[in-house]
């Protein structure tokens, strides 16, 4: 009898609970039965851009890359590269609003490695890989004609000034810092800083916050005199492109045949990317001999160690960019904030029913990732600084005026200045 009662109790409980759990999301006010033959409109949901069009974009990128390579290497035509970059600016810039771009795709690829649940779409992966593959064989023709950010800057160059070598080298370290931070933030699932601080995407969209417009316009204004400042001193993708280009198989050449050392091309490059012949007398006079080389080589491990140390010191600060870490820190350091009705993040967290312990645990996992990540990033930056210093005392024998393969953007400007004919 007791058992029966128990079962009965369970059944009634189930009957009461079942509609509660399932139908709690159903209507409080049931939909009326209309008598006047009212026809209910349907909810309109416009379709997103068709997948075929996304693949079409990849095709356009491929064609533009082939054309840019063709113009820079084969027909040696600045005109061709110029018109191609106008097309890129219109298509990838103003029509496609600058998204997705290979620069930002770095972060998608990183996150797809770091986060097992993150799925990367094939179009994004192709956008990331195609320019790098092309650069490995033909130099940075992507920068010349296929990058909308490069195109918009290339078209505003009016009177480029030549920067001193030390400034070029120092500013050239910024892309390494930028890509390290971008990869660190992407790998920890914190933020996509490359996309967030893209100075030109607001111009492409014709819609941005005031500060981003100011940033974009000031880059363009600066770009009139310091040619393509974003490409040379900020672009994180330029790091990868420069590595590829340095070892490219068929990089463009200034002269179609043999250099006659006429020096006509020396001022033609707005990006200071032409290497002059080595003046051996000066090298001897400067006294930067093997001793200096050895000293800088020994310094490299010290640079790396310093980088790791700085990374380890700064990981707490960097991890605050992560919203979970930030919220956990805020709640611990300032518990009264719970009573602040205006703090949406805190109020939403409190309403969500999650406990502070789980949040702190999540934040600790993320901070651990930052701990390792910032040490790797710091070590990498130390290595880059050490190698850059080492490079300043290495002299390669050069008889000719040649493009610096890493920094050359393959814009084909120098070719018009070369008097040598094929």
């Amino acid at each position, binding site marked *: 009898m007791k058992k029966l009662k128990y079962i009965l109790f369970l059944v009634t409980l189930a009957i009461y609970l079942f509609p509660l759990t399932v139908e709690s*999301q159903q209507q409080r006010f*049931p939909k009326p039965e209309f008598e006047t033959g009212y026809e209910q409109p349907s*909810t309109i949901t416009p379709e997103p851009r068709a997948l075929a069009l996304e693949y079409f974009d990849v095709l356009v990128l491929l064609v533009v890359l082939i054309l840019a390579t063709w113009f820079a290497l084969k027909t040696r035509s600045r005109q061709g590269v110029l018109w191609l970059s106008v097309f890129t600016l219109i298509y990838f810039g103003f029509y496609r609003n600058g998204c997705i771009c290979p620069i930002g795709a770095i972060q998608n690829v990183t996150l797809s490695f770091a986060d097992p649940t993150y799925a990367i*779409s094939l179009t994004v992966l192709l956008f990331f890989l195609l320019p790098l593959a092309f650069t490995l064989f033909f130099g940075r023709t992507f920068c010349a004609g296929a990058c909308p950010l490069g195109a918009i800057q290339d078209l505003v160059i009016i009177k480029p000034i030549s920067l001193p070598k030390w400034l070029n080298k120092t500013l050239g370290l910024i892309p390494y810092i930028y890509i390290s931070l971008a990869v660190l933030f992407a790998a920890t699932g914190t*933020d996509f800083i490359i996309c967030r601080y893209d100075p030109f995407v607001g111009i492409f969209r014709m819609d941005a916050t005031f500060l981003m417009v100011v940033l974009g316009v000031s880059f363009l204004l600066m770009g009139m005199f310091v040619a393509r400042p974003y490409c040379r001193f900020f672009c994180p993708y330029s790091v990868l492109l420069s590595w590829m280009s340095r070892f490219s198989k068929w990089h463009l050449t200034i002269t179609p045949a043999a250099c006659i050392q006429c020096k006509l091309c020396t001022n033609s490059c707005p990006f200071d990317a032409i290497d002059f012949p080595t003046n051996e007398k000066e090298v001897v006079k400067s006294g930067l001999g093997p001793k200096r080389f050895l000293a800088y080589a020994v310094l490299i491990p010290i640079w790396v160690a310093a980088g790791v140390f700085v990374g380890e010191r700064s990981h707490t600060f960097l991890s605050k960019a992560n919203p979970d870490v930030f919220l956990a820190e805020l709640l611990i350091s300032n518990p009264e904030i719970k009573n602040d009705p205006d703090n949406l993040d805190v109020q939403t967290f409190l309403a969500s029913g999650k406990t502070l312990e789980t949040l702190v645990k999540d934040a600790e996992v993320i901070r651990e990732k930052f701990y390792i990540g910032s040490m790797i990033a710091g070590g990498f930056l130390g290595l880059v600084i050490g190698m850059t210093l080492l490079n300043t005392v290495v002299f390669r024998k050069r008889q000719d005026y040649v493009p610096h393969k890493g920094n050359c953007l393959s814009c084909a400007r120098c070719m018009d200045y070369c008097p040598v004919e094929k």
Partner: protein
Amino acid sequence: MFVAPVSTGGLIFREIHKQMENNSKSKNRREFIQSGVRLSLALALGSVSGLALSKVVKDDYVWQIDPFECSQCGRCATDCVMSPSAVKCVHAYDLCGYCDLCGGYLKPDANALSTAAENQLCPTAAIERKFIEEPYFEYHIIEDLCIGCAKCVAGCTSFGNGSLHLQIMHHICVNCNECSIARVCPSDAIKRVPASEAYKVKGDFSNNPES
């Protein structure tokens, strides 16, 4: 391939030839190193693509709001890169009670059940109230006026059926690599969804296993 002097005769050619002979040894070595590094870079690229290919999806991804996780904070109106926001209120008519006293349309302290501007909750008057039959009214969102502030959504969710809710409209959304609203969403309600199932409209429960 472009360096080799093909047709230049005379002095230049001879000079170059001499230099090349002198440097041929070091040049060979340099070329060997170059091609070695090139090969390893190509391998690195290949392995990155191979690793990524194992997780690649043919479908494209778009951003969408899960209406069941949305907390109606109002950041959709302010943080989208588009202005006005690509987030709009949509109406799941199947769930609507067609109430006269609508929590999404009228202010809580409205002094009359009317279309008078001072009674409307929507700051841009983007909701159209239409009489159907006694005592039922249809509510329709004028998309061009909607700014995605979620005031009506909050009203409808707390006092009504929750038939009004926010969705990202894909003919306006530019599909940023990282959605700037998703970054600031306090309840993480904005997620990447396959482009083939681009909406999470309430009532269309095919996408929602919970109900």
